[in-house]
């Protein structure tokens, strides 16, 4: 496995909804290696303040063009949002393990992707890969309100079955994405595999839900990172048999392996 550190010209940095942006740039090297669920470690400032890179998932790879989708929550992502077409972006990657979707065929499982808020970012890349092989890809998207529901049209365009929920009912069902997931699960239908990314409370609820139905599930987790490459031990989480690094052993984990009380 090879990791690259590159500076590339931004092709586009587009505001796609309030506080959410999408950057596109070209990198043949990263594009060749990238797998859904992996992330890039991005230097947001041209100075040493803020100092550390920020982990952002790979949202899409097409030909050699890479997309990231991010939400402005602080200084780093704020600086990123101010970059314009033609500015350079300093990225390291691809990093992390990525989703394991190879076993779907052999086990005859149907994929259900569950994204909360900006958690949809890595799932779109996964959906793109999945529709190459499967006709039955379901994507459940939840957010607080309509303007934070992202990617619906382009997921539908891929041929995915898309269901939406909002906490305020401004679009889709009134409730959470976990409510949507509940409807998909039944004791008769355990031939599913769930891929989830979103806030910790959402993932915890999914964990409780799938432990009832015993559905195979993978989750993408977040921790604050320094190196992003597995060297500093800054991003560890507790798992069943010890500790793992989110940046190197994750960010994708089997839902059963995670010690949820510790998150």
């Amino acid at each position, binding site marked *: 496995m090879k990791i690259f550190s590159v500076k590339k010209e931004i092709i586009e940095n587009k505001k796609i909804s309030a506080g959410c942006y999408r950057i596109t740039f070209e990198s043949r090297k990263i594009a060749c290696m990238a797998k859904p669920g992996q992330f890039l470690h991005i230097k947001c400032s041209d100075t040493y303040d803020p100092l550390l890179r920020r982990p952002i998932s790979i949202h899409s790879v097409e030909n050699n063009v890479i997309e990231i989708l991010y939400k402005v929550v602080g200084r780093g992502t704020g600086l990123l949002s101010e970059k314009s077409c033609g500015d350079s972006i300093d990225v390291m990657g691809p990093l992390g393990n990525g989703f394991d979707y190879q076993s779907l065929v052999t086990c005859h499982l149907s994929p259900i992707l569950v994204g909360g808020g900006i958690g949809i970012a890595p799932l779109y890349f996964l959906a793109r890969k999945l529709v190459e092989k499967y006709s039955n890809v379901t994507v459940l998207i939840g957010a607080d309100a309509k303007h934070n529901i992202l990617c619906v049209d382009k997921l539908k365009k891929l041929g995915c079955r898309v269901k939406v929920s909002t906490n305020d009912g401004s679009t889709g069902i009134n409730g959470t994405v976990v409510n949507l997931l509940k409807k998909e699960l039944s004791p008769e239908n355990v031939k599913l595999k769930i891929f989830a990314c979103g806030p910790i409370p959402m993932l915890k609820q999914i964990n409780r839900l799938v432990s009832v139905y015993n559905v195979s599930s993978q989750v993408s987790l977040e*921790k*604050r990172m*320094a*190196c*992003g490459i*597995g060297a*500093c031990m800054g*991003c560890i989480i507790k798992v069943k048999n010890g500790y793992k690094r989110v940046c*190197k052993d994750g960010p994708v984990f089997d839902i059963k392996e995670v010690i949820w009380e510790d998150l």
Partner: protein
Amino acid sequence: MKQLSLDVNIAGIKMKNPVMTASGTFGYGLEYSQLIDIENFGAIVTKTVTLEPRIGNPQPRIVETASGMLNSIGLQNPGAKIFIKEKLPKLKEYEVPIIANISGRNETDFVKLAGLLKDIGLSGLELNISCPNVEHSGLFAQNADTTYKLVNKVRKVTGLPLIVKLTPNVTDVTLIAGAAEDGGADAISLINTLIGMSIDIQTKKPKLANVVGGLSGPAVKPVALRMVYEASKKVSIPVIGMGGIVTSDDAIEFLLAGASAVALGTVNFVNPNTCCEIIDGIKIYMRDNKFNKISDITGRVK
């Protein structure tokens, strides 16, 4: 024009350039080998190894601060056995001197570790004495007497070049530097991190689970430089300077202040290619200033 020479000899450790890694920021070299040519470094200093595995501190372990970061990793490491059996053999495939950084709770731990790490292909040992001494209060490195005794004991059991790493969290670093030299150190390195803190004003809780942590990165450079300057005037053994280095100018400042080599820590997280950039910068500086070798720069501050 005379050929520029970047190689240095630190206490018998022959390095092709004076740029090393700082312990704990480069793991055991293996992760970074997927990204950069780790042989570019003059030497690789490993993450601290302890006798037994350590699980480290609870999360959160890192917090960003103005031009720096706080960490409370808590010396998480797999222990000496796994280091020797699994990590070191892979690291030894690279043509670069390897220095094991070791730590312990008491003198016995350090002595046992130094014994275990003999004759296995290491180029040197660095003692991380910025750790609590469980038999006395405070850190080893905060007391000249405990520093002297510890270094002296380890000195007796190892023939490897011995580097003693000092903490900046002391009133007078020259006293500890002197004690390390008297105890038999072949070189000293400094600084380790500065103890700091950060509070989330909304939750009113410390941002680190451990409450306090070690500050590193550009924010600490002036303090580190001052301490390297003071310590190198005190001792006659080589000094390895570190703390906030990000550019070749920073590295040259440390050399001028009295360092014979420098180490890169936090900057590895930010720009893993910094080593090469610094080496190029030092070369240009040497050419411009008609220095032929690194030792011509060391201590040349006026």
